[in-house]
């Protein structure tokens, strides 16, 4: 009891292909955790399963003590469990402001709409400048900001970010990391999927290493090995 998000023994996949095997993960209130591991080993699948885009074949997911296994995405969003998906193109032909306003469509988020909007524009001033531009005209970094902004418009009680820095330049990465740090400090618990270990280590208290759809190692701040050894563990020598 008491965990904010509790995933226990979840199995999921696409059609006949099983991607997640009896995976168990937990997030406590006020905590930021990271998911880490090679590509194609189930991190995104896990987030999709949590968000209700995929129905798990087995196991149980609960959020704030409520069972949300197999719930509709819309109900999960209403509960405040929000995901900002990976490689985002959002809604290409919609304006920035339109998109953000639409993102507060859920009953709970509608109440905090104006306040959330102010918060998003504070966090990402660039979005404010581009508020009447179509999403497809934005740069990669701005799209990522818009995506995270949308998630914030949903009044998240837990925010899951799927590779927010994917494909960004080091400078933008740093900028975005700053913003994500701000979100974490504002008290929103985070689940972050990232390849960039440094980025993860700087933001999270705990890391789950996922390989072949299973958690193969859990790393606390306390027992964290240093950066280089993590890299060696998962990517061999060739990185760097």
């Amino acid at each position, binding site marked *: 009891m008491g965990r904010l998000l509790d995933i226990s023994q979840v199995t999921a996949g*696409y*059609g006949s292909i099983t991607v997640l095997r009896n995976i168990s993960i937990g997030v406590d209130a006020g905590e930021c955790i990271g998911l880490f591991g090679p590509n194609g080993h189930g991190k995104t699948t896990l987030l999709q399963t949590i968000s209700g*885009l*995929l129905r798990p074949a087995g196991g149980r997911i609960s959020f704030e003590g409520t069972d949300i296994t197999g719930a509709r995405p819309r109900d999960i969003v209403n509960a405040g469990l929000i995901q900002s998906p990976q490689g985002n193109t959002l809604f290409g032909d919609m304006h920035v402001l339109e998109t953000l306003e639409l993102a507060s469509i859920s009953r709970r988020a509608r109440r905090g709409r104006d306040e959330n909007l102010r918060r998003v524009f504070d966090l990402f001033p660039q979005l404010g400048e581009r508020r009447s531009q179509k999403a497809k005209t934005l740069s990669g970094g701005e799209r990522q900001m818009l995506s995270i902004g949308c998630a914030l418009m949903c009044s998240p009680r837990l925010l899951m970010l799927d590779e927010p820095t994917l494909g960004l330049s080091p400078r933008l990465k740093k900028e975005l990391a700053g913003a994500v740090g701000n979100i974490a400090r504002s008290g929103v618990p985070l689940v972050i999927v990232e390849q960039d270990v440094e980025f993860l280590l700087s933001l999270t208290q705990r890391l789950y290493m996922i390989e072949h759809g299973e958690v193969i190692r859990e790393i606390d701040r306390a027992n964290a090995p240093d950066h280089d050894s993590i890299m060696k563990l998962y990517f061999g020598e060739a990185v760097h």
Partner: protein
Amino acid sequence: MRPAATSIILPLASLVLLLLVPLFATDSYTRHLFIIAFLYAVIASNWNLSLGHCGVFNFGHLTFFGVGVYTAAILSKTIGINPWIAIVAGGATAALAAFVIAAPVARLKGIYVVLVTFAFGQLVMQLVLSQAQITGGAEGMVRIPYLRLGDYSFIKDYKLGYYYAALFLLVASTLFLLAVVRSPFGKSLKAVRDAEDYAAARGISISRQRITVLVLSAIFTGIAGGFYAIYLRVASPDVFGFGTLSLALSMVLIGGTGTVYGPIVAALALTFATEALAGIRGLEEARFIVIALAMIVVLRIAPGGLLGIIEKLNIGERKTAEPADARN
């Protein structure tokens, strides 16, 4: 290895049965139904070559048939060529028509293939309608010469000759399809259907494949068209209509299309089933509704037959489990 029973014995036994049918069905009505069913079987199974085996959603397959119809009609009636040759010529012109439409089809995907092939069919129909002095326009051509073999005339024999000719056509078409599907080319079709990117990476030219498959699927369809014109002694533009198209499509779908035989069986079954319904007064419209419902039900609950091919249409997108993002 499949058991011999399904791949050889069953088809052969069916063939023997069909060879014996005229002994028992002595009236020309039953034989006529078989002839029409054989022709639909040729259309449907050849359609399946492009649709099921290659994943090209060709909505203009009946156009090839119509081209065959008019080729045979014009050659035999207007020019006076021997009807046997006119029938075979139907296959040649249909293949030519397929070649023409194949160029855009090879370049397009998804719904655009449906639309461009549909438009092509409409275009050919408009052409036929507008060239009334050659094609007879809306009313078509009648009194097309009938078949003779030596001094044996194919009329007034209670359709015995036509029965065997149509059966021969079906057997030839089926052997042709089996040969295509089992050839290296047929296997490369499967590769493309199942993994377009992979096939492309292995140097298989997808557009050349699509062109080839459309042309191959048109040959016997066109010959069937030629036979249709010579047999019924009529060529009329309704062969391009939606009615024939949806009937043939339902045969492909209901038959289930993993095999060459599926659409053939469905063509036979549906021809007799709808004809049985046609005999009930007051239910004339209802039979079309029954076919449409059957199509929906098969699509929904018989994944073995139909969803098999559907699964294999339009391959190449890896993000399969995502909710329909099927546009491109």
